């Protein structure tokens, strides 16, 4: 998802759980600050904010059961966003604020497009977490890899297929599809 502001669209519901507001255990980063760390965390935060916005659009296009799944995934992205903000704060870096709206990568009308958008968002967020995996801090690496895995699992649940390299540009782009789709 591009970061440029787009036309106002469905905003995510405002009924999410309270922010955790704390960095994951062992990931309070004071004293470990590097410019690269801050930039990678900010990039992941930007991707999470875009996904949170995007899931609001996704949920608005789905029936009840699928919308509940979108809400669960949206909540997970909110938790990750809060953790990223806490990590940046512990670095002494001001977390970048979310934009009021984001340009969608393609028109989203109907269930199929909404599910495609969810898969797209998850891959973008996974890519941002892989930007943290290259840092030297091994705890941060492992945490970011766990987040990238969570993105891949959510994408597979939505799309009913897997990719060879979640978050990385794939050589062939071939996907392995499930027979009975795991998506709602």
């Amino acid at each position, binding site marked *: 998802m591009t970061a440029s502001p787009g036309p106002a669209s469905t905003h995510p519901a405002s009924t999410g759980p309270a922010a955790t507001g704390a960095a994951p255990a062992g990931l309070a980063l004071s004293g470990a600050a590097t410019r690269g760390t801050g930039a990678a965390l900010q990039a992941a935060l930007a991707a999470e904010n875009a996904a949170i916005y995007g899931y609001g659009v996704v949920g608005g296009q789905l029936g009840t059961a699928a919308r509940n799944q979108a809400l669960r995934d949206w909540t997970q992205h909110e938790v990750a966003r809060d953790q990223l903000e806490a990590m940046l704060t512990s670095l002494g870096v001001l977390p970048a604020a979310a934009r009021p709206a984001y340009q969608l990568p393609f028109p989203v009308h109907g269930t199929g497009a909404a599910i495609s958008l969810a898969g797209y968002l998850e891959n973008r967020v996974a890519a941002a977490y892989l930007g943290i995996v290259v840092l030297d801090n091994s705890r941060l690496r492992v945490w970011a890899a766990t987040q990238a*895995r969570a993105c891949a699992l959510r994408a597979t649940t939505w799309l009913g297929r897997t990719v060879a*390299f979640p978050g990385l540009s794939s050589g062939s782009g071939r996907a392995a599809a499930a027979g009975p789709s795991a998506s709602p």
Partner: protein
Amino acid sequence: MRADLRRRSVLAATVLTMPLLTAACKGVGGLGTLPKSGPDVALLQGAIDTEQALIARYRLAIARSPGLAGTLSPLLAQHREHLARLTSMLIEPASPSGTPRPSPSASAPAGSGSDPSATLAALETAETDAASSLAGRLALAPPALAQLLASIAASEASHALLLRAHGAAG
């Protein structure tokens, strides 16, 4: 095999992530003698072994349960992509890309007999174990390899999810 590999090969990833200035100073001729390449190559070789074992498991599973080919072949193809990408990080590949060399676990049963549900369950476990194994190598890997390992581990975790969904549906 590994000692031989250590002598003759260096990680392409290490080369790519080294500062340009360092590369310029040492020149290509100096790269083959970098002592730090040993652990990295061993780490990469471990990941390659994991992929080759998975490929062998999938081939065996498809041979035993041809009815699962539609489900398993796309996943097998993705493992071949994993192997090719990992092998490409060796300047001097350990074996031709996509051609698994024999490994101790290659003959491990992918399931009991040709029971499809047992086959799916065994593969699901193998995928989960492989994802954990790759994730466990992250901390020590050079940056580009760490990124690749994280992506492959995520892919394999999603394979396990898909296999579980098939098992439940089947």
